[in-house]
């Protein structure tokens, strides 16, 4: 059975829309594929906005602590499955301080082969959880906004990946950078050009699809739904559907070039 493609949604800066991107990709891909979302952010926003049960007591932390098996923590939502996050993961630096602990997530994911895609929603900070994701993932999608802080966050990803690859701990690649909360301004256009210029340093080109800014993103969160379900005809939902197609295309290109 083919192993699932594990994609982490990550950039080392808060507020760029990682959780929204993770949720929308889970929902959009979930219409056509078997998808698992995993919430690694101690703020548990993916768990909350997906409308999952936050109080099952069977969370990712329980899996990483070997209290339960990974399949025991999976919740079946409308279009995808989800492993809920845990607020106690805020202490990850203390909980997972052993050198070997960066392999915990990868070990857990080896036991599940029933999915086509697994999307990981990351916390913005460097922590053992982020390192676990680098080790377990095949690809990174890095959402960004049009500010210098976001670009810095992208450059840090490039540095981290190089460091991990040097020690032979990961094979992860940047699938692409994603311009999020896009508006029709000169500043946004300049930021997009910066992403193209920095593609080599970051390790991945920006996606042609840009996700437009819309209040619908906030409304959908209030309703505990993806934008894809809440207002499927909205521009943002359309952008994510286009992004899905572009991701599939890039994955196929990578696969062909590896073969």
């Amino acid at each position: 059975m083919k192993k699932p493609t594990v994609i982490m949604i990550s950039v080392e800066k808060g507020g760029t829309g990682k959780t929204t991107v993770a949720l929308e990709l889970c929902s959009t891909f979930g219409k056509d594929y078997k998808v698992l979302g995993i919430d690694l952010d101690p703020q548990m926003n993916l768990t909350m906005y997906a409308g999952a049960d936050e109080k099952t007591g069977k969370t990712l932390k329980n899996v990483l602590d070997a209290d339960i098996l990974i399949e025991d923590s999976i919740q079946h939502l409308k279009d995808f499955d989800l492993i809920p996050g845990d607020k106690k993961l805020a202490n990850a630096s203390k909980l997972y301080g052993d050198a070997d602990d960066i392999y915990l997530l990868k070990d857990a994911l080896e036991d599940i082969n029933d999915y086509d895609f697994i999307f990981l929603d990351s916390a913005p900070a460097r922590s053992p959880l982020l390192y676990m994701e680098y080790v377990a993932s095949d690809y990174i999608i890095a959402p960004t906004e049009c500010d210098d802080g976001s670009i810095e966050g992208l450059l840090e990803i490039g540095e981290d990946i190089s460091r991990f690859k040097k020690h032979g701990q990961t094979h992860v690649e940047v699938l692409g950078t994603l311009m999020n909360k896009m508006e029709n301004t000169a500043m946004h256009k300049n930021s997009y050009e910066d992403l193209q210029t920095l593609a080599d340093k970051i390790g991945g080109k920006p996606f042609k699809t840009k996700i437009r800014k819309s209040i619908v993103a906030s409304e959908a969160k209030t309703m505990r739904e993806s934008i894809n379900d809440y207002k499927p005809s909205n521009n943002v939902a359309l952008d994510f559907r286009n992004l899905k197609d572009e991701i599939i295309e890039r994955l196929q290109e990578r696969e062909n070039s590896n073969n």
Partner: protein
Amino acid sequence: MSKRDEMRKLREMRMKQLSEADRSTPAEEVARKAEAAISETPSDKVNPEPDKSTDTLAINTDINDSEVEMPTINKEERHTASESEPRHDEKRQKISESNLLNDVSSNKLHDKKQVIGNIGSIPRLDFTYKAKDQKCGLTHTTIMLTEECMTLLKTRSLQMGMSQQDYFNMLIEEDRAVVNTATGNLTPNETLLGKIDLHGKKSKNITVTIDNYKFMKKAAALRGISQTNYANYIILKEHLREETEGRRPGKYD
């Protein structure tokens, strides 16, 4: 022992349990299944039994809308060995909404002041209902109503001594109770749907509870109609019910 080793050990124990279960005799298997069925909690059921307690406002606003059965989508089954509840793929029977509403149960009316009638076995709400008292919170939305529905909403809420907001939310709450206890697809009343002519529709800003807002989308989907049509449909449904069963008593009655 490192966490990786603990994880490995837990997996081995589970594999061992599964292989022991495979080797069990048929009698042991039946006993095991019976034990599992007995230990199943009520919350595992997608469609819980209607609350037959003597509580007057017995409509369970705590029911999670995700428990509402959605129309089946033809997808591959998932084969994860998860302990979470599997999706329900049972065949559904179509039921007519008018039959469901007319099915008056033999439950007693324990408090005539508050309970004025039943929807099947579900007590009906009354003029004391307040949307702002619901735990889930409120949200604002805009609905498009026909002229008739706008008039009905204004008139009946005034006559009941309620705000339009509370009246509209009350109707949705009652419909939630109906939908949550229904065991099949809901066939909407075609005559009522035919009366929804959105030419000359009027826009209305209204506050609804968050649970009701989420529910409207699902209730519309279950009936195969749009959310706009649903908002008009429940007002017309109530009007039809009052014409056949009598008006709902209001604050001044």
